[in-house]
Each structure stands twice: as C-alpha cells, then as structure tokens.
C-alpha cells in the first residue's frame, strides 16, 4: 500500500500540473494597460508555486514509497541536517519567494491603485443594483447631477434617482445599460451601490472592485483593444446574482462619438 501511495500521488501531482504546463487554462486576452504586470506576476507565482507543489508532492511520494512497510524492527534514522536543515530551507526558499513576490507584486498593485487617474481621464459613473448595472455619462456640461435615492423609479427608467426638473446638471446626463468607452482613453469609473454589495469584474480588463453601499469608490483603467466584453457581478448580491451582467463596448473614437451623438439625440 505504501508503494501504491507513492505511485498514485506522483501520478496525481503530474496530472495536476499538466493542464497548467500545457496552457490549457489561460486567462482571457488582456485589454488593459495595467494587466500585463498582473499577468506577469501571476505567471511568476505559478512557476514558483508550481515548483514547490511538484517538489513537495514528489518528495512525499518518494519517501512514502521508499520508507513504508519495511521489515518490523528495521533500523530507523534521521535525515542529515535534521530539523535545522528544514527550518533553514523553509526560511531561505520561502523567504526569497516572499520577498520576490511581495516586492514585485507591489508594483502591479501600485499600477492599479497608487497611480492617480490623469486629469483628462473620462469620468463615468456606474451604479450597481439588484440585479443590473447602469452607467451615467456627465453629458455636455461635464458634470454629474446629484443623486436622490428617494427619486429612484425603475418603472420610469429613473435608475439613478435624478431630478432633472430641479437639478440643471442632471438634465444632460446620459444613462446607459452598457458601458461604451473609446479605446486608448483612460476611464475613471465612479462606483455607486444602490442597495447591497456588488462587484465590477471584467476579466479582460484585469479589474475587480466591489461596490460598497455608502462608500463611493473609483477605479481607473485604459482599454487598449476594441471589442465587446462581459462585465459580471462577483459579490453575492441576492437571488439574481448569477444573472447580473452588462457589457463593456470598447469602441474606436469615431464609433464612440457616433454613439454619444445618438445618445444625446435620444434625450
């Protein structure tokens, strides 16, 4: 049985690593300027964690294969170096790994969170509610009108609770169920939760950020490829959670202008 354990574990370890090595499961294409650093970090971590995984599993498999069910009363002995060797190995191996990953990882994190958006970044407000995303563009005046939660009326498509009758700034605000953005332009997404917690996740953008009720957060990103991408909710928000999604349409500047013009004329 000991030998069997060794063989089975070795097979499991190799089979587990194979889909990764063979690149069966890779992240969707990266369409952001900051995503590259995250992918690189992920790949580095995969290499280090993968080697640790294979090393430890194969060692365990070999030791059990070699040292199980020997004759009763067989001599037992300790590995040269003993506990000191193990502790030293853990400190050196994992310590370097931590330093390397920790320091490198900060760069990727800083790209997303510590670099402020450029002043010319395009501001779009996103509101998450059970179970839909809505997006609001400030319109020609470049200003968002204030929100009045008591004015929210889904029946009349007032998803944000705007009051154009009294707020001048709200009058030209454009509300859309899809996030249309021009390519290669920095976007700052102002995040507002209407009811409970939600999250904004676009795999291709390498962005995931919770909507926290009562806390107005913001993320910024620059999409680099045109196309239609899925925005999904990743924070458990109720019975329709699995069905809460929207689309990110990254358009060329001309297409975006056309879209914007059309939206304005619809008002």
């Amino acid at each position: 049985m000991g030998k069997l354990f060794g063989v089975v574990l070795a097979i499991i370890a190799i089979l587990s690593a194979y889909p990764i090595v063979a690149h069966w499961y890779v992240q969707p294409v990266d369409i952001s300027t900051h995503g590259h650093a995250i992918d690189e970090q992920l790949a580095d971590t995969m290499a280090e964690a993968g080697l640790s995984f294979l090393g430890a599993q194969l060692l365990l498999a070999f030791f059990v294969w070699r040292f199980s069910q020997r004759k009763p009363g067989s001599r037992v002995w300790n590995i040269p170096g003993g506990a000191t060797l193990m502790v030293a190995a853990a400190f050196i191996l994992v310590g370097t790994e931590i330093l390397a990953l920790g320091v490198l990882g900060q760069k990727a994190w800083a790209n997303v969170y510590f670099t402020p958006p450029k002043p010319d970044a395009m501001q779009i407000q996103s509101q998450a509610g059970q179970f839909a995303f809505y997006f609001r563009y400030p319109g020609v005046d470049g200003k968002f009108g204030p929100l009045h939660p008591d004015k929210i009326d889904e029946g009349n498509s007032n998803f944000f609770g705007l009051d154009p009758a009294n707020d001048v700034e709200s009058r030209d605000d454009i509300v859309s169920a899809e996030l249309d953005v021009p390519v290669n332009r920095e976007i700052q997404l102002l995040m507002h939760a209407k009811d409970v917690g939600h999250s904004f996740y676009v795999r291709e953008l390498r962005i995931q950020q919770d909507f926290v009720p009562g806390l107005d957060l913001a993320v910024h990103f620059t999409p680099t490829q045109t196309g239609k991408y899925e925005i999904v909710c990743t924070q458990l928000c109720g019975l329709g959670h699995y069905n809460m999604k929207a689309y990110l349409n990254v358009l060329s500047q001309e297409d975006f202008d056309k879209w914007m013009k059309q939206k304005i004329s619809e008002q």
Partner: protein
Amino acid sequence: MEQTQPQSVHVHAPPEGFLWKYVFSLDHKVIGKQYYGLALIAVFTGMILSWLMRFHLVWPNAKIVGLDLISKSGAPGGVITPEYYLSLLTMHGTLMVFFVLTNAPFAGFGNYFLPIQIGAEDMAFPRFNMMSFWTTAAAFLVLVLAFFIPDGPPISGWTAYAPLSAVGSDAGPGLGWGQNLWAISIGLFCIGQLLGSLNFIATTLDLRTKGMTLMRMPICTWAWFITSCIGLLAFAVLLPACLLLILDRMAGTSFFIPSGLVISDRLQNHAGGSPLLWQHLFWFFGHPEVYIAILPAMGIVSHVLVTSMRKPLLSAKVIIYSMISIGFLSYMVWGHHMFVSGMNPFSSLLFSFPTLTITIPATILTLIWLGSLYGANIRITAASLFALGFVSMFVSGGVTGFFLAQPSIDIYLHATYFVVGHFHMVMGVAAIFGILSGTYFWFPKMTGRMMNETLGQLHFWFTFIGTYCIFMPFHYLGLVGNVRRYASFIDDFMPALMPVHRFVTIAALITGAAQFIFLYNLIHSRFFGKPATDNPWDGTSLEWSIPSPPPWNNFGGKHPVVYHDAHQYGVKGEKGDFIMQDSPETAAG
C-alpha cells in the same frame, strides 16, 4: 461556579441513569463523542447539500425526486431555483465551517483526548463543558430550523456580508427569519465555543499530572491548546458582531447599513452604517477560524504520523513553535479577504506581508513532516494513509495561498473558483483528512473495538483520488475567470467550461458516495468490530496506558506519573521499539 471547588472537581460521581450518562453527561469523553456525533450529522447534511449544488450546476433543469417535499418554493417540482441554490450554498458553508471543521477536530477529539493526554480525570469545569455542548447543539438546531420555515434558509453566504444580510426580507428570500435564525445560531455557537475554549485553556494549564511539563505534552495536546487560545479571541469578536447584526435586523439600528439604500423600490430607513465594519469584524474572526479548523488537524496528523513512523519527528519543539507563530500571525492577516472591498489600498499591502509570512511556519511544518519520513519505517494503516494524505492536501491547498496573498493577483482571482479550490483543499479537505485520520486512529480507544482496515483503506483511496478530482479543476476554472456563487453559468464564455464542471460533479457524487463506506464502517465496527487491545498502535502517550474504552474516571482513580515526552519511538523499550510516557524505564538508545 460549583465546579471550581476542589471537592467537586474530583470529577462528578460515577454517572447513573441514561439521561446523566449519555445526554447531560459531565464526562468529557461522552461530551467529546457528542460533539463528534453532531459533526457527523452536520457533515453528511453539508455533503448532501453540496451534491444538490453540483447537480444543479450541470443539470439545471433535472428534477431531484423528493426535494420539493423539503422546500416547495425552493425546488418546485424538484428543480432547484437560483435562490434555493444560494440557500444551499449558505447552509453548506455554515454547517461545514462551524459545525464540522470546528466541532470535530477541536471540540470533539479535543474534549475526548486532551484531559487523558495530560493525565487528568476530566476537564477543569465539567458543567461548563456540558453547557458548551448543549449550546452548540441548540445552535445547530436553530440553524437547521431555517430549512423548515416558509422564508427558507438565508441566501447571503456563510460570510453574511452586510447590508445584504442586515436589511431584511426586502433584499430577497431567506433574508427575513432565515437570516435571523442564522445570526442567532452563530451567536449561540460563539458562546458554546467560548466556554469550551476557556475550559481547554484552564485544563491544560492547571490539571496536568505529575511530570507532565508543557514540553512533554503530545503535539496534538499542544495543537488543541493553541487552538483554544485562538478560539477564545476569535469567537469573542464574532459574538458582538452577531449581536450588532441582530440589532440591525430586529431593532432597526444602523451599525452596518448606510444611508440612502433603495431595495425593492423602497428607501431603507437606516443611516450612516458601515458595511466594511461587518467585513472587518467577520474576517477578524474568519481568518483565525481557518486555523481553528486546521491546527487540530495538524496536531492529530503529527500524533498519528509519529506513531506510524516508529521514530520521533525531527523536532517536536519546532512544530509547536511553528503552530504558535501561525496562531499569532493569524490575527494580522484578516484584511487579505478584503483586497477588492474598497479598503484603503495601503492596508492591502500591509495585510499582504504577514499573509505571505505565514507560509514560513507552514512550510516549516510541511518540511518537518516530510523530512521525518526519511529513514522511517512507516506502518501503512487507514489512519496513517489519511495522515499522509493530509500532508499532500495541505501542500496543494497551501501553495495556492501564494497567489491569493498578493493583492495584485487577487484583483483577478478574487471571487473565482480558484478561491473555492484553495480553501476547500487547505481548510476543508485537509482538516477532514485530519478528522478521518484521528477517527481510524482513536476509534479503538473510544469504543474498545477496531475499525475494519480493508474498508478503511478503500475509503481512503476513493476520498484521496476523489478530492483531487473535485478540487484541482476548480483552480483551472478560476484561472480562466469562472465566478463563484453562481446558480447557473449563463455567461458567454461558460459553455466551454461545462465539461469540466460535469467532471467535477461526477467526481463529487462518487467521492461523496464513498463516505458511506466510512459511515457503515463506523457504525458496524462499533458493535461488531474486533475487540481492541489497550495499545493497538504501540503508542506512547497516556491514552494508550488505560483500558479501551477508558473507565469513567479515565485512570481508575490513580494519578499517572510522566517520565518522558511523547516521542520515545525507535528506542529499545520493554514492550518494543517505544517507551510509554508513564514508564519509568530510560531509553537505551
């Protein structure tokens, strides 16, 4: 307070009558078995819930015969609705984390063996002990009651993030009385665990028998002791958090609910609360909880391994210090659950470093187990197979922690199946392996009968291969961005992944079915198993020096004297290659 008096601690008199012997028993061994039994009910319930979830994910329209009898609205005609899927998910998580992973390895085995291993007649406060079990049992009943009320079980997940969990039934089904029951249940559970932890600490500190210095305690005793210290802090924080949640729900306060929420077209009458406050309080408990589940398993596995290897571990001291540092660090890392929650991004980096650092003691533990196997003479039994399986699972689940500890990678992997794979392996399956290893190992002591070894090993192979088949693919799914907690996969890119999900579901059904081999073995052996000797595994610790099963007062009224630590293996002793802790002989080499 009576039990604090010297006269009454000399345990209770021998129990008489069914009620006092088996139900409201003060005997730590009976209480330990009660905890174990409760965990057994919870684990099979939780497993069946996971079957239903896996089944629904890949055959969303298939009817499950009889399910509509349990919940007419949740599964009309036997087809699970999206909200019932979330109910199953919440109950699965809550049952498993609280009532299985905390109850069995810590409260169950700990209660049974901690006093024996330190040579005590019982816990320091037997009455508190009995109360702590019955509080936990009440918590269990309150939780399960949620299945049978019209509102149904809560749908907010085992983490019960506010405001979803706090605003009441406007936000969806199960969030009315279902969520109330959840909050009350967890509050009760905290009280039970606090009493239990207090008992464990006082017992370990003050009731050790003559010669049983702290460093002579077996590693699993240490693990239970450290766990009870962690539990005392963790549950002391979760309890007030639950209280505040209950007040928000029932008394209309606004601790976790901010202003201006519009739910179901209704403006909520709350103002100024902080949803992140719940997350901070919950994860301050929640992360240490992971170690509450895994540390006892580490202790049990070390105990089983050292007995099976016939040689001491490379260093028991290093293992103990590593466990202590894990316990210590576990309080500095809770923020790593909140990297994308809108917490200050600098805090994310601050939480990332201790999280990465915690891998150092974890790696030391792994290397000590691995290195100790070198040159050993491993006896292969169901118990030792599960212990070796634990090491393998701990490594597999541990290395993926590297990814999630880094905030930058967590941006991509957070809330995907990668996380599900990670915590199921390192916390769920690894701890379950510890529990199973402990069960095969200690069953002879607890019942006086041996378990069937063939069935045990068969159970191991199904479980070992099966769990890898279930949880390894989760990581791949996460890497491509498969989001967790979805009742069905209608995203554009999901259909391509369905074959993987189908494979996982089939593996889960088979692996789960194999657990019934274990249940059969457990029950059958209890009555018809081969009679066990006092020391069937040639162990050294004190539990092996007394009859199987032990008498009600453990050592028959005598007080054992301890001469050695618990690791005298690979030596020439009177009885073989080991010397028992209470044997005065000296190791000849």
